[in-house]
């Protein structure tokens, strides 16, 4: 096996895992605390990418653009929560699915109205566009390293906030027993808004980081959000740790499956059959994984302790 290729694929898997974690973190908290299925969470991923793309070009600075785009995306999330999401928490899951499906349509069309149909190319500054040379044959693209480090940083920060601060304590308490937290005098509405907006900002950050590689496009969040749901279901809904482990598993399996499954299948199949079967199976791999995990452990790998 080509070791340079293997390392590149490992990096790609890490990168996908990290991006999925950023999406899944908000999703799992929102679901865990508010029992709210937000299919439109992917829209914040898209909105973040477009806002930062515009600012990066406008300000001619990548870092400044991203730093400004984060609070803006957070504001979009906050407004969405106050206007729409808030009145849905007490409804059933069917209403959540439908209403957030409507929100997706609205976000996609508004984005289309503002930024046009062509999508957006976001330039990378030269200092992020290089390669880090480890050895003669192994070079790592520095932007991918930057994405992974930034993502890990957010993961550590989230872990700190959720497990070490008073706010995090309230969030965890809210996830395990909402009514009790309310009875203890915590303004649960404010807590909900905060978590929703923060989740939106983190999802937006994922969009901002990937957009220099893939560009920003309408509906870019709609496919990845489904994978993020797979992540939180594998990890156990409501658990940050579960989201992190689940995201890395899904990111790795998806990437590795796409690059190495054909070689694996060739070990016990004819070359032709393996080459036709591999793409189909690798695209289905994460869903197969999810089905197996749900069949064996319906609550996911790390379900929150008290529900």
């Amino acid at each position: 096996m080509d070791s340079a290729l293997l390392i590149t694929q490992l990096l790609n898997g890490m990168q996908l895992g990290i991006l999925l974690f950023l999406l899944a973190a908000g999703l799992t908290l929102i679901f865990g605390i508010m029992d709210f299925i937000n299919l439109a969470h992917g829209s914040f991923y898209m909105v973040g990418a477009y806002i930062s793309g515009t600012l990066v070009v406008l300000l001619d600075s990548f870092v400044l653009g991203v730093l400004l785009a984060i609070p803006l995306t957070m504001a979009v999330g906050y407004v969405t929560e106050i206007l729409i999401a808030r009145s849905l928490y007490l409804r059933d899951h069917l209403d959540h699915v439908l209403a957030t499906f409507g929100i997706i349509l609205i976000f996609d069309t508004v984005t289309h109205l503002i930024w046009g149909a062509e999508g957006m190319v976001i330039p990378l500054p030269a200092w992020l566009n290089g390669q880090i040379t480890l050895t003669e044959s192994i070079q790592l693209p520095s932007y991918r390293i930057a994405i992974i480090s930034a993502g890990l940083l957010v993961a550590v920060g989230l872990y700190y906030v959720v497990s070490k601060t008073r706010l995090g304590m309230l969030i965890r308490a809210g996830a395990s027993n909402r009514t009790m937290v309310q009875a203890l005098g915590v303004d649960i509405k404010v807590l909900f808004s905060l978590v929703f907006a923060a989740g939106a900002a983190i999802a937006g950050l994922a969009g901002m980081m990937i957009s220099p590689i893939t560009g920003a496009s309408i509906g870019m969040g709609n496919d990845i959000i489904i994978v993020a749901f797979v992540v939180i279901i594998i990890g156990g809904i409501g658990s940050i740790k579960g989201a992190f482990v689940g995201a890395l598993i899904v990111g790795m399996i998806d990437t590795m499956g796409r690059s190495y499954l054909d070689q694996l299948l060739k070990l016990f199949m004819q070359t032709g059959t393996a080459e036709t079967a591999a793409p189909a199976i690798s695209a289905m791999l994460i869903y197969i994984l999810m089905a197996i995990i749900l069949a064996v452990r319906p609550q996911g790998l790390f379900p929150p302790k008290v529900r």
Partner: protein
Amino acid sequence: MRTSNFLTPKWLFSIALLLLLAVTPILADIFDQAFYLSIATRILILTIAAISLNFILGYGGMISLGHAAFIGIGAYCVGIPIYHDYSSGWLHIVLAVSVSAVFALITGAISLRTKGVHFIMITMAFAQMAFFLFLSLDEYGGDDGLTIWYDSEFASGIDIDDPTTFYYICFVSFVAVMYLYHRIVGSRFGRVIRGAKSNEKRMQALGYNTYNYRLVAYVISGAICGYAGALMGNYTNFISPDMMGWTRSGELIFMVVLGGTATAFGPIFGVLSFLVLEEMIPDLMDMVHSGAGFYWHLPFGLILLLVVLFVRGGISGFLDRLGKR
């Protein structure tokens, strides 16, 4: 809620709608509007799919976000045999129904072990699997889809290439499926399914194995939706994995909710209004400002949101309230 009075607005409206659907080909012929016949055909096919979803979602409380997969499977059960020159319509129908039923049996057996959001997501995951499976079948067009060059053929001299004949096949199927579900919902089996939705523990305490009942309901629903898919394949003459994407399943749920879940006429009301909105909004917007119709998803999404937030019981519920005044 059994009333002997059939003169409620809902019943009058429903009966008028059925009569209208029965004579649509004649009207389309008189006014020379083949386009409306085509729309009406689509309404009937989607209604069959919506009825099948309404049974498990509305009466059974099983929110499947993967029901479009059955439409896709049914359509591919027409497209793939025709690609290999097996043109028998009976073969297509048997294939569509049985493959869908088997898919429903396998996926349902796993999905129904879960509840709530897990069920929603696992049904969606299985539909995504089907989506990616057909996406990777390069032989049958993959991403680009597959054109069906001719329609299913029936030995008995029925020519379904003819729009009117095809319409009446859909209409008869629609009436048959409506009647079938009317019988199922009222039967002992249907009562167990409804009972399990409102209080599963009690049904279990009464000695019913709710899992088995739900599985049977899920398989019936999948099989009927697969049949709708076979009709859809003949209707569009072009099939692609896009038919089973998760947004399609979301639209199907919207149709059921818009019409009113767990009601006999809800699905047809829902599909009808969904397609009317889909056709009308762009036209209306273009009238206001040329080219604006391109952005019809915006008002459409808003309407969806407003329906969820403010309209309880969908159109069927609205007509019920109209009758009580």
